[in-house]
């Protein structure tokens, strides 16, 4: 895994202060959202705990001794939620699901792989898709089950797949 490339803002101290100027803030938040998503994608993180996140390298740049306040993190998470990339797991907003790719996008990727390999009309178990040998080189390899399910459900609503129950879990048939 190559090391993560931080964007220029990450080393710019004002990046860690919530800007009062509205226009400046919009640009700042957009930069934070894309940084958060690409960081999570790089580390294959699917959930985040707010307090842990505050101490993680993402929101805490030790080199310039700057870190985001909890308040600022909440603002960024709210932005992500509005964009559909984040979902709170609890009412107190301490843990969240981070979808650096939305379910529909995952679904599309999976379907592309399925049709590319001529495997439409086959049945797969969820395990095969996320952890099978055949999918090792695919981006969706290692996808957590809840995310995979959502992706397949998205395909289902598009009529391209159907989630079925198998003896020892769930599976999917592609059309």
């Amino acid at each position: 895994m190559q090391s993560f490339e931080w964007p220029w803002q990450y080393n710019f101290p004002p990046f860690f202060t919530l800007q009062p100027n509205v226009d400046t803030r919009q640009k700042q938040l957009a930069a934070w959202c894309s940084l958060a998503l690409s960081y999570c994608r790089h580390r294959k993180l699917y959930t985040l705990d707010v307090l842990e996140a505050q101490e993680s390298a993402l929101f805490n740049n030790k080199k310039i001794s700057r870190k985001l306040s909890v308040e600022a993190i909440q603002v960024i998470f709210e932005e992500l939620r509005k964009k559909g990339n984040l979902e709170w797991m609890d009412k107190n907003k301490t843990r969240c699901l981070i979808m650096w790719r939305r379910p529909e996008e995952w679904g599309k990727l999976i379907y592309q792989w399925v049709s590319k390999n001529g495997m439409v009309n086959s049945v797969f178990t969820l395990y095969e898709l996320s952890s099978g040998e055949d999918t090792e080189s695919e981006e969706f390899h290692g996808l957590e089950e809840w995310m995979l399910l959502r992706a397949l459900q998205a395909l289902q609503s598009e009529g391209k797949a159907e989630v079925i129950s198998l003896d020892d879990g769930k599976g999917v048939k592609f059309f």
Partner: protein
Amino acid sequence: MDRFVWSNGLLEINETLVIQQRGVRLYDGDDKAKLDVGVVLLSTHRLVWRDQKNHECCISIPLSQIIFFEEQAAGVGKSAKIVIHLHPAPTNKEPGPYQHSKFSYIKLSFKEHGQIEFYRRLTEEMTQKRWENTPASQPIPTATASQAGRTRAVGIVGIERKLEEKRKETDKNISEAFEDLNKLMVKAKEMVELSRSIASKIKEKQGDITEDETIRFKSYLLSMGIADPVTRETHGSGTHYHMQLAKQLSDMLQAPLEERGGMMALTEVYCLVNRARGMELLSPEDLVNACKMFESLKLPLRLRVFDSGVMVVQLQSHSEEEMIVSALDNVSDKGSLTAEEFAKLLGLSVLLSKERLLLAEKMGHLCRDDSVEGLRFYPNLF
């Protein structure tokens, strides 16, 4: 015991019995009085003692003679007592059982108890001092504090008496002092009325008095804090006084403003102007009102209010864009600046330099870095 007078023991008109207690022996100071055991009666006006066996033998003392009293607890073989300290007898005192006594206190010895209740009632009566309100019909010799005057202090009693007197003096002084204040306030009201009437007369007779004098008089009024009636009627368009003042300020402030880069906080202006004037100082109100007139009088100065509420006077030629651009240059030059650093760089006050940086941030040229290290401004690279 020489304060007592013979009495018939009958209550006078307006005098009421409060409590009585039998089995009481009197003491002259520490010595037993040459009287037997009797009944002690407390009334609203007096302390009366009557021999239990011989009812003819009856003596009394007015409560006003009592300075203070205290309890003396019972001991082995000794009854509880109340010790009563007395003022010296007045010269016109009626005859009593004792012509003379070396003690200025007596004791009531309660052989049959009852001292607690008696003490309580005595305290009440001494607090209420009902004898002062309703003098009994027969003249009772009273010794008030003022008559007693400077008596020879004897031990603790003397000290306490002195303290009491001091307290009364202080009380009196304070009341007197505030009396003066009340009088002053009454006078001040008259003065204000007077000056108001003169002011309105001036207004009427505009032609007879020179403008100079009118202005001078108005400035006196203003310095006393009395609003000029003319101002009230013409609110907004200002008065001659403020207009003149505005012109004066504009002349006075040109040079200092240029020195300071074209902008000064209103507080700085206030200090500068009043220091220069020496006498006939300006009130903050006047200064603000005069400054508000700069624009309408087409003077080359402007009063400006920032978002934060800070008020400044600036040269009209002072261009805000130029300032912001130069601020941006300075910040870019140094990478980042705090308000203090910026102030030092430009020779401005910290307050004004912060305002300038905030303005640049508002325009989107700068962004801020707020951390434990302080507030810094960076060029807005976003």
